[in-house]
C-alpha cells in the first residue's frame, strides 16, 4: 500500500507526510517488555474473535452440506456432512448468483464513475477562487452522508412511490407521463441514484481535502505562467489529488459489491427486486429464508474474495499506471 510514494517528493513533503528517517531511532524490542502485548491484546482478542474466527468458520461451513432423507421431518432425517467444494461448484454454476453479480458490476461500472466525476467537479468548483457561498455548499453536499443508508433508502422510496411522490407528480405535470421509478429495468438506476445522493458529498469532501492541502504557491506559479483555471485544475490539481481518488474508488467498489440495504428496503414497495437481486441479498435469503446456511456461507466467501481481488487489483492497476508515467 504505497500509492503515496508514487507522488512527487515535493508534494508529499508539502502535505506534511513525514519522511521515514526517524525509523532508525526506534528502540529495540525488549526494552518495553510486555507493553505492546498489553496495548494490542484487547483489540487483538476481539479482532480474532469477530474477524478471523468468522472468516475461518465461513470457510469451514461452506465445505459442509445438509443431506435430507425422506421428507426431512423426523429428528434424524437431516445429516450434515463434509461436501468438499461442491457448494462452490454450485455457486459458480448458479445463474441466480451470476445475474446478481452481473447486476452489481453493471451498477458499479456506471454509478462509481458518475459519482466520482460528480464529486470531483463539485470539489474543483468549490476550490476555485471565483465561487461564493462555499461553506453553504459544502454543508449542503455533505448533509446526505449524515443520513444512514437505510433511512436514505426509506426516504427515497417515498419519493419513488407514485401515490406519495412529488417528483412523480411534477414529471407528470411536465407532460412526461407517469414515470415508473420502480419498474424492472428502472429500479437498479433508482438505487444508483440513492447511493449517488448519499455518497457524492462524502467523496467530494475527500477530494476537497486533498485540494485544500495543495500549497497556494503552486497555483500562483501556474498563474504567473499564464495558465487558465481549467489548466490549473487539470494539470496541477487533479494529478495531486489522484491518491484521494484512488481511495474513494476502492471504498466505492467494496460498497457496491456489498449492495444490500437499499434493495432490501425498496423490496417493500416493488416486486421488481428479486431475492437474488444482489449477491448479498441472495446470500441473506439463502441463509435466513431458504434455511441453507452452508450455501450462504459459500456465497459470502466467494463474494469476499471477489471484492478483495477487485479492490486490490484496482489498486495495483493504478500503481502500475502511475509508475509508468
Amino acid at each position, binding site marked *: *500500500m504505497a500509492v503515496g510514494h508514487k507522488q512527487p517528493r515535493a508534494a508529499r513533503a508539502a502535505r506534511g*507526510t513525514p519522511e521515514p528517517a*526517524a525509523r532508525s531511532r*526506534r528502540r529495540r*524490542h525488549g526494552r518495553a517488555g510486555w*507493553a*505492546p502485548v*498489553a*496495548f*494490542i491484546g*484487547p*483489540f487483538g482478542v*476481539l*479482532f480474532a474473535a*469477530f*474477524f478471523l474466527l*468468522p*472468516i475461518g*468458520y465461513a470457510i469451514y*461451513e461452506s465445505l459442509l452440506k445438509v443431506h435430507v432423507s425422506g421428507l426431512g421431518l423426523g429428528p434424524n432425517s437431516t445429516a450434515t456432512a463434509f461436501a468438499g467444494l461442491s457448494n462452490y461448484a454450485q455457486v459458480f454454476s448458479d445463474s441466480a448468483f451470476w445475474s446478481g453479480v452481473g447486476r452489481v458490476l453493471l451498477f458499479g461500472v456506471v454509478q462509481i464513475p458518475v459519482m466520482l466525476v460528480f464529486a470531483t467537479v*463539485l470539489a474543483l468548483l468549490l*476550490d*476555485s*477562487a*471565483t*465561487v461564493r457561498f462555499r461553506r453553504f*455548499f*459544502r*454543508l449542503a453536499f*455533505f*448533509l446526505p*452522508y*449524515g*443520513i*444512514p443508508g*437505510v*433511512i436514505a433508502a*426509506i*426516504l427515497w422510496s417515498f419519493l419513488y412511490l407514485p401515490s*406519495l411522490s412529488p417528483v412523480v407528480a411534477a414529471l407528470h405535470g411536465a407532460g412526461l407521463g407517469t414515470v415508473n421509478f420502480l419498474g424492472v429495468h428502472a429500479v437498479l438506476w433508482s438505487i444508483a441514484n440513492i447511493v449517488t*445522493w448519499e455518497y*457524492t*458529498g462524502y467523496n467530494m*469532501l*475527500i477530494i476537497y*481535502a*486533498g485540494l*485544500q*492541502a495543495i500549497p497556494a504557491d503552486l497555483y500562483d506559479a501556474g*498563474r504567473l505562467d499564464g495558465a487558465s483555471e481549467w489548466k490549473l485544475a487539470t494539470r496541477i490539481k487533479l494529478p495531486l489529488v489522484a*491518491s*484521494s481518488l*484512488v481511495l474513494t474508488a476502492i471504498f466505492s467498489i467494496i460498497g457496491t459489491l456489498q449492495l*444490500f440495504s437499499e434493495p432490501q*428496503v425498496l423490496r417493500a414497495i416493488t416486486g421488481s427486486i428479486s431475492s437474488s437481486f444482489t449477491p448479498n441479498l441472495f446470500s*441473506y435469503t439463502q441463509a435466513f429464508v431458504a434455511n441453507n446456511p452452508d450455501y*450462504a*456461507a459459500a456465497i*459470502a466467501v466467494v463474494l469476499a474474495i471477489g471484492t478483495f481481488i477487485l479492490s*486490490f487489483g484496482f489498486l495495483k492497476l493504478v500503481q502500475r499506471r502511475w509508475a509508468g508515467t
Partner: protein
Amino acid sequence: MAATAPAAPVRASRGGILATALLFVCAAYFLLPAWWLVVSSTKGPSALYSSEGFWFSQLHLVSNLTGLFRYDDGIYWRWLVNTLLYAGLGALCATLLASAAGYALAKYEFRGRQLIFSVILGGVLVPGTALALPLYLLLSKVSLTNTYWSVFLPSIVSPFGVYLARVYAAASIPDDLIEAGRIDGASEGRIFWTVAVRIMSPALVTMFLFQFVAIWNNFFLPLVMLSNTRLYPVTLGLYTWNNEYGQAPQLVSYVIIGSLISVIPLVIAFLSLQRFWRSGLAAGSITL
C-alpha cells in the same frame, strides 16, 4: 481553511456566476429530499397523499410526534437509546481499543509487528456483510444471538481505526517525548494515557466519527442478529415499520417523522465536526 485557500482576488466573473449557479442546482438535488422529509413530518395522513409534496399543508406536527412516541408503548424511545448505546458507546470503545493497538504498532519494535499490521490491514478490506452471517452462526452456538452483545461486540472492532491510529501516531508522537517520560519513571501505560492520547486527540475524534457512522450505518448486522424489537437500533426499527404500513397506515407518518427525528442530532453533529472528517481523510489518503 481560509488560510490555505487560493489567494487570488475574488472577481464576480461570468465563469464564477455560472459556477455558483451550477452549484445551487446541485445543492437543490442534495437538499430537496431532506426538505420533503421536514415538510412531510408536519402533515396529517390525508394531506400526505393529497397535497403538494414539497410544501406545507395542515399542520399535524404535534399529533405526529405524540403518536410516534406512544406507538407500541413508546418503543421508539428504546430504539433511540439502543442506537446511542450501539453507536455512541460502541464507537468510544472501538476508538480506545484501536488507538492503543495503533500506538503500539507505531512506537514499539517487536517481532511480528509487520505481520500483525498486515493482517489488520487486510481486515479493512473484508466486507462487514461477509462477516455477519458466519458470526451469526457462531454466536448462535453460544446462545449470544438476539442480545445487545451480539451487535455491540462486533461493532467495537475497527481495523481502519488501527490503521489511522498507527499512521497518526507514527507521524505525530516524537520518540524523544516517550523517552523523556520513561526517564521520569512513568509506566508505559501512563505515557500512553498522558502523552500519546493527548497528541493523538484529533485523530481520535476522526476515528470515533468513522466508527460511529460505520455502526449507525450497519444495517445488516442487527438485521441478522436481532429478533427482539426491544433491542433494535432505530434504523432497523424504522425499516420494520416501513415494511408494515400496509397493515397499519398510520405507520407511514411515524416512519417519516421517526426518520427525521433520528437524523437531526446526527446531521448537526456531522456538519459541525466536518473539519475532523477532512483532516482524517486527508491523512488516510495521503499515506494509503
